[in-house]
């Protein structure tokens, strides 16, 4: 009963926020509604017992993809009102294509036959021996498919190297942190006890003149500097 109520609650919010994604005038609001939609979809997955998918949806889609969208929307100065100018003119074409897709979907749905065991599987997505689906996926991923999993990691490493090769530039004017110089810096900072109410000028404690600081040495960057 409660699960049923929760389902309709989350599903309702999901659909409402999905509608808002496409209708809101401000693209930033659109992306924020998209994030709301992702959260509600994750909740639906939780209700269905697929907690791994729920986690992935939040971590990957909300944590990475939606934030990336947000960055893109905020950084690119796109005039969305202008993009919509042709909306009315192109609406008939869009309707025709949408109609064709709808008919195709209906045809597929009409011919659809559920597998006999589908209903039972849907009621019990968790394996009978109490293994959660995160654990079940992990078991397969780290045993049968460990090879592909490791190569995927390697591909990501190569992508990282590639991005650095193609984009990292060392500008001679770039200011970099020199940790060693910072730590070695001493003598220019002193602590004095100052009588309460006395001004610095009156007690004669002016800031001692800074010794000629050694120029921060040029950091060899490519050989392991701090980015």
């Amino acid at each position, binding site marked *: 009963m409660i699960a049923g109520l929760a389902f309709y609650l989350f599903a309702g919010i999901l659909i409402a926020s999905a509608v808002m994604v496409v209708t809101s005038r401000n693209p930033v609001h659109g992306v924020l509604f998209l994030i709301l939609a992702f959260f509600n979809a994750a909740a639906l997955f939780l209700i269905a017992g697929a907690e791994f998918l729920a986690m992935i949806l939040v971590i990957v889609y909300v944590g990475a993809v939606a934030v990336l969208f947000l960055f893109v929307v905020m950084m690119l100065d796109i005039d969305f009102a202008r993009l919509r100018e042709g909306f009315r003119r192109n609406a008939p074409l869009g309707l025709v294509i949408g109609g064709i897709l709808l008919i195709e979907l209906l045809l597929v749905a009409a011919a659809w036959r559920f597998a006999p065991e589908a209903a039972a599987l849907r009621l019990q997505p968790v394996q009978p021996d109490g293994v959660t689906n995160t654990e079940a996926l992990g078991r397969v991923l780290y*045993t*049968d*498919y*460990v*090879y*592909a999993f490791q*190569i*995927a990691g*390697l*591909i990501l*490493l*190569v*992508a990282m*190297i*590639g991005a*650095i*090769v*193609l984009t990292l530039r060392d500008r001679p004017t770039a200011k970099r942190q020199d940790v060693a110089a910072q730590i070695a810096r001493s003598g220019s900072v002193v602590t004095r006890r100052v009588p309460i109410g006395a001004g610095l000028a009156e007690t004669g404690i002016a800031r001692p003149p800074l010794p000629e600081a050694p120029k921060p040495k040029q950091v*060899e*960057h*490519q*050989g*392991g500097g701090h980015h």
Partner: protein
Amino acid sequence: MGFDLTPVLPELFLLVAGLVLLVVGVLTREGEAARVVATLSVLALVIGSIIIAASDKSPQLALGGHYVADGFSAFLKILLFVGAALAILLAQGFLHDRRIARFEYSLLVLFSTLGMSMMVSANSFLALYMGLELSALPLYVLAAFDRDNLRSTEAGLKYFVLGALASGMLLYGCSLVYGFAGTLSFDVLADAFGAATAERPPALLPLGAVVGLVFIIAGLAFKLAAVPFHMWTPDVYEGSPTPVTAFLATASKVAAAGLAVRVLMHPFGEWTAQWQQVVVLISIASMLLGAFAAIGQANIKRLMAYSGIGHIGYALVGVAAGSERGVYAVLVYLAIYLVMTLGTFGCILLMRRQGQYVEQISDLAGLSRQRPMAAAALGVFMFSQAGIPPLAGFFGKLLVFLAAVEAGLTWLAVLGVLSSCVAAFYYLRIVKVMYFDEAAEPFDTAVHPAVTGITAITALATLFFIVWPGPLLRAAGAAAAALVR
């Protein structure tokens, strides 16, 4: 199976070497990192080849059956490792002259080679795809390695976009085969689609799997740069830095060809009739386009691109034969092609005027007068690529055509011979320009010893292959026998 990692030793070694060299490259001083990492990478590749040569050649599965090490993969891996090592050596002088000497070059070649070696050892569609991506991603970066050069970045971008398209087609094919067969494993597929035995009726190849196979062939044809998926080749070859082009034209193609042979001969080995027509079509189109389109080229790298398309067409003649003999011919062809092509690119890298690398065919004029040895070497490579006896290239073509005739594809062999006659025109035109045209400007005399050395060795290998062909032919024969069980 279990977790016995002995068969995977070459890949594990390369992987660890790559990761260690990444750290070494970051920690070494800027001026020396490129040289140090390049030397160590070549060393790693050589050690990797020795590990393979010393390993057990009987078929061994590992990592849940996704990986197989057998004589076929061992032969191709040694080719790939040698090709990659030579590509790294060829590159050092060039990168230094162009002021783009960075240690990541060698690392990317190393990781790409690792991916290629995983490709030729793939025993499931999953491993095939992952290996393919691991080999392709560094290649995209390498093509754009000269990042301040507009044409290099254009080449990288083109290669990347079209490569992604090809991956999509390949994956679509894999998913269709999976959907209709219910497995990704080559062994299980070979069993399901295998020949009828006493206790089993003959299997059927579902139509969906056939369509999937066609898509897989299309995806692989892109990697092979075979017609009609060759469009990216001339632009990418021309725009990429020349050593990268050498690597693209050799190792990348050899790996893709090896993969194609394994996919066609192992899971679908009983269904030659289903894929033969597709391969024959691609082969004919590649041979003809390679022969005719190269005639009008003025840039030698573009010419090599079309020449490579033609060579893949000839290699596919052997694949189309669909027999052990055909696989054997393809392997010999690939080995000879690798050596000839690396040597040719060595010659291209020797052509410099006033510190600039020149790559127009007309720039070759007068080479015979000023640099007789380089001209002789390039002449050897051109005659060999044209398939003129007694040079190595002739034997590759001979074996491939013999295999086709044995398989009843005589007309295909005849077409191959005719198109190689056409192709001889533009190879010989280069010889004519070198020996009979007057030079405009003198060539630079300073040369990089590694480039000269590689060119000389490959030229001698091409020239004297006829004297001592035994080792290569025996190794290729054993490799082919290992695949076609």
